[in-house]
């Protein structure tokens, strides 16, 4: 049997008296696509920090990528980049390969260049790889982010709201790139998002976090009126409209984006 890409066992995270989640058991198989959903402050970002090794658990254990954190790829959300930043797309991608390494790295520059070129080509970013990064669109920057995360040949891909602030077409193309990777290379994907609809067809399982309560399961099991009402402890209605899931009634701050209307 192959080992899990990610294994959380009895995981608990608390700050003082405040418990973000407790008793969290989650095993992610290679090639599996997990979406992490929940309102703001439910501990999605903290979960990400735990998996990245930046935040110790209060209790329980975490194993990821066989203990080799270099085999973790990370895609952050798109942020505005300074227009005058002295950096090209290929430099950003190069960071994903050896940005963490000490020393000059003068040997092996040929191999490095080839790997970066391949990663750029794989996301279709070759044509703008040498342009100043601050002049690229948000979608182009996120493609580079995908290349940056994939160039290190990750076993686990952690994505923190990578589609935020992208338009629909770019949401589609970026999530397709991530999906292609897990299919060809069996990379496990943990995808933190506010908005499940752009990735709904790709998702194997959902981890839904609400105020310390959580539920793990297939989208069809978790994204139901019954389950979400239980999680939110209020009357929540889940409506399917064509291929979209709408969550109604959990409209506290940070929840409204479940409405498909925000996509457009």
């Amino acid at each position, binding site marked *: 049997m192959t080992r899990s890409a990610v294994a959380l066992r009895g995981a608990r995270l608390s700050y003082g008296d405040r418990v973000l989640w407790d008793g969290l058991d989650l095993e992610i198989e290679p090639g599996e696509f997990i979406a992490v959903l929940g309102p703001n402050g439910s501990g999605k970002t903290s979960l990400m920090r735990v998996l*990245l*090794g*930046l935040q110790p658990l209060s209790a329980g254990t975490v194993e990821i990528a066989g203990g080799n*954190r*270099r085999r*973790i790829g*990370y895609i*952050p959300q798109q*942020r505005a980049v300074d227009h*005058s*930043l*002295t*950096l*090209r797309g290929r*430099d*950003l991608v190069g*960071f*994903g390969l*050896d*940005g*963490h*390494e*000490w*020393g*000059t*790295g003068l040997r092996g520059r040929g191999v490095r260049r080839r790997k970066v070129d391949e990663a750029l080509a794989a996301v279709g970013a070759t044509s703008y790889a*040498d*342009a*100043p*990064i601050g*002049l690229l669109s948000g979608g182009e920057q996120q493609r580079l982010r995908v290349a*940056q995360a994939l160039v290190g040949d990750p076993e686990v891909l*952690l994505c923190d709201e990578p589609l935020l602030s992208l338009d629909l077409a770019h949401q589609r193309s970026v999530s397709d790139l991530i999906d292609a990777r897990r299919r060809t290379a069996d990379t496990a994907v943990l995808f933190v998002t506010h908005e499940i609809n752009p990735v709904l067809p790709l998702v194997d399982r959902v981890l839904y976090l609400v105020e310390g309560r959580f539920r793990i399961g297939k989208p069809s099991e978790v994204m139901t009126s019954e389950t979400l009402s239980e999680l939110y402890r209020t009357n929540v209605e889940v409506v399917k409209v064509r291929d979209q899931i709408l969550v109604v009634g959990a409209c506290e701050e940070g929840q409204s984006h479940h409405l498909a209307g925000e996509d457009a």
Partner: protein
Amino acid sequence: MTFGQLLGIDFVQQALIAGAVLGLVAGVIGPLVVTRKMAFAVHGTSELAFTGGAAALLLGVSVGYGSLIGSVVAALLLGLLSQRDSDRDSVVGSILAFGLGLGILFVALYKGRTTNKFGLLTGQIIGVDTTNLWLLVGSSVGVLAVLAFIYRPLHFASVDPDVAVARGVPVKTLTIVFAVLVGVATALSVQIVGALLVLALMITPAAAACRVTASPLRATVLSVVFAEVAVLGGILLSLQPGLPVSAFVTAISFVIYLVCRAIGVRQRRST
């Protein structure tokens, strides 16, 4: 004296060697300083180098060591107190003001030659004697060696801190280490161009280079070339009229900056 005779003088030759070494260090560090938006921090550090130098004058020890200690202490303070970008401006401002005040007190208490005092602020090539030259070369080699070792993670942390943290780069530690490197480089520059004009060597050439290329490597090479032209050209031009070096260094680097800005604007229009 003719120009050729001037070039034969020991202290002129020492100044040229010192200038060449400085141009290299400042040129390499500059693009990182610009990327990290640390121009004001560099200025603050150089004011503290002045304070250290003034204290050294008063105590009768080498000004080179005084300014080195002053700016490294300043760099450590800035690195430790301003981990958050939002704090940095006000922290630098407060430390700079206090340090400058202290330096003026030391200078006022000093009873020696006034040119020594003035030299700390505006630079003087006579200040580079053999001892200082060795200190300068030694420190420069040290700075470049450390920089070569930490360059990739430092660059990563400077332009892409969120992902760098996620990839396990010790971003906070690097901030402090880099601040110390900047401190050392600043203290060295103070000896040639003076505390007030370190920016002309550490910022202007790099800012000019970043205008014309988006490649970090090319920007660094250009920044070194610009810094060398400014500092060596400045020293040579200052010899005959006997005017302060810093005036010429700043003038040359500013002209380069203006030219690069113009080229940068044309490049962006054509793409």
